[in-house]
């Protein structure tokens, strides 16, 4: 039996029913709490001993988790290690996962916390990523970036994605943000999370997400203009 938080309070016509008896309402409630029903089903199966369920979850999220870790920590080797560490923690703690939040935000929360803690430790011992030291972009890319920022040229996502030098410049700008700002920009503009999900992943209030994201974008724009 799949149990969703708050589900036992729901009533359908004819009396108190569980989620499996009222999938439409279950989906609505799950969505309102950022719970992906498919994820919730897989987690429940996993907790009940179906090892195939975890494989599906891992396949679904490993690329996205690696991507956001890489964008935050800026080092492919560190990102690879941290991605594995994230799944180790996910597997170790799945028994403690109580479905109060979605698996998606829970797993991303682990990933972001691991990455930010790793960044703090690295900063404490004075390491800097070699990747972060690379000079990014050539003059043409800089001019293209300046044109987009100065309102002269509309950004074309496809063209930007194909322009390696321009992407490098943008990534360099993101790297120069402080960790808090970088994390929130990555979660919103790269991973596409909504504000409520970001608040859950970062363990903060919705208002803080709004103000921090606003400051992060302003800072990023200043950095990109200065490049």
């Amino acid at each position, binding site marked *: 039996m799949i149990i969703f938080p708050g589900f036992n309070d729901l009533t359908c016509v004819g009396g108190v029913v569980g989620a499996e008896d009222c999938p439409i309402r279950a989906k609505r409630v799950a969505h309102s709490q950022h719970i992906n029903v498919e994820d919730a089903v897989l987690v429940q199966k996993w907790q009940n001993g179906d090892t195939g369920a975890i494989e599906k979850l891992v396949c679904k999220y490993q690329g996205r988790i690696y991507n956001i870790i890489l964008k935050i920590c800026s080092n492919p080797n560190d990102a690879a290690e941290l991605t594995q560490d994230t799944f180790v923690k996910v597997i170790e703690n799945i028994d403690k996962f109580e479905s109060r939040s979605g698996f998606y935000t829970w797993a991303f929360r682990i990933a972001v916390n691991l990455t930010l803690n790793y960044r703090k430790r690295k900063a404490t011992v004075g390491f800097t990523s070699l990747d972060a030291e690379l000079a990014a972009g050539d003059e043409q890319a800089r001019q293209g970036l300046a044109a987009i920022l100065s*309102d002269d040229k509309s950004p074309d996502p496809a063209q930007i994605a194909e322009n390696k030098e321009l992407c490098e410049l943008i990534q360099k700008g993101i790297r120069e943000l402080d960790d808090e700002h970088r994390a929130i920009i990555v979660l919103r503009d790269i991973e596409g999370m909504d504000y409520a999900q970001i608040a859950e992943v970062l363990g903060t209030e919705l208002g803080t997400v709004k103000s921090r994201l606003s400051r992060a974008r302003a800072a990023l724009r200043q950095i990109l203009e200065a490049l």
Partner: protein
Amino acid sequence: MNFEQNPKIEELLNSYIDDELSADERSQVQRLVRENPTIAQRLRQLERCKALVSSLPPAEPPARVVAGIKQLLRNHSAGTNEPKHIENRRGARHLFVRHILAASIIIGLVGIFGAVVYKIVGPEKTTMPIVAVQPAPTVESAVTPVEAKKAVAVAAAENSTSIGLYSLQLQTADFTAVDAYVNKLLEESPWLRYEATKDQPGKSAYRILCSRGGLEAMMSDLATVWSKFDSTTLIVRTDDVGRYVTVESVKPEQIADIARQDTIDSRVKLAKDFATLNSVEQIMPDEKMLAATEQPMPELTTIPKPVLTSGDKNTVTAPKGAWDQVQVDLNIIVTNHK
């Protein structure tokens, strides 16, 4: 419009482009944008900034990450969770042993450090040489006026507060001449009382009782033959029973300075300072020693002078009449140094 001073508008615009506003709020923002070109421009800037970041291509995880996670899953499927708990317990035991070892090492290091510090700053311990001293004659047994004067001095020494027992060990290759000089010097110094013991060839021991002024005069005379000594060592008694301070390569004026101190503490302190000073001079014989208060000379290595808390000639003011009292009890041992 300065958006840094209007963070709420900036937040509103960001929420607008992120589709996080209610229908009413969206309408308000759209009206603001229509009416205010500055806000409209800022909105475009934010949209462009967001578009730039969103356009970054996603990075694919390396094959080794995928393989690593698959291996993790295989281990998990194979039921390696149980060994994990055992590993955790082993890990905890291992960590405990490491903590114990680390604590032991730290305690050991602290002990060694403490011993080293004690060795450096603690009172030096040496064995006071045994000197055979004949009993001092009583006043009644003195015959000549000089002897009577000496006997009075001895009696005064025994009854007054003697400033302590010193032992001055002198080694010389020219034993016969130097010992004869010392003998003669003592004989011709009526202001001091002495006993000589010469029961071993090549060794003479003298026990001297005198005032501090008398000691100063004797040291001044001894200074003329000081260069003939290969080794000069002064041993000063401390407050602690069985503990002494040894001053190697001591100079006559240093002995007088030490004897001039009024308390055991100040004598011991000064003796330690001289011991340090002489030790440094021995290590760096070619360097000139300057006091820290003197003008620095850049061409010389300036070694800070040990801080003298007492004993400076200019600062000591002996009570009136102190020089007339018998206050010094000194053993001088002259040995033949072949």
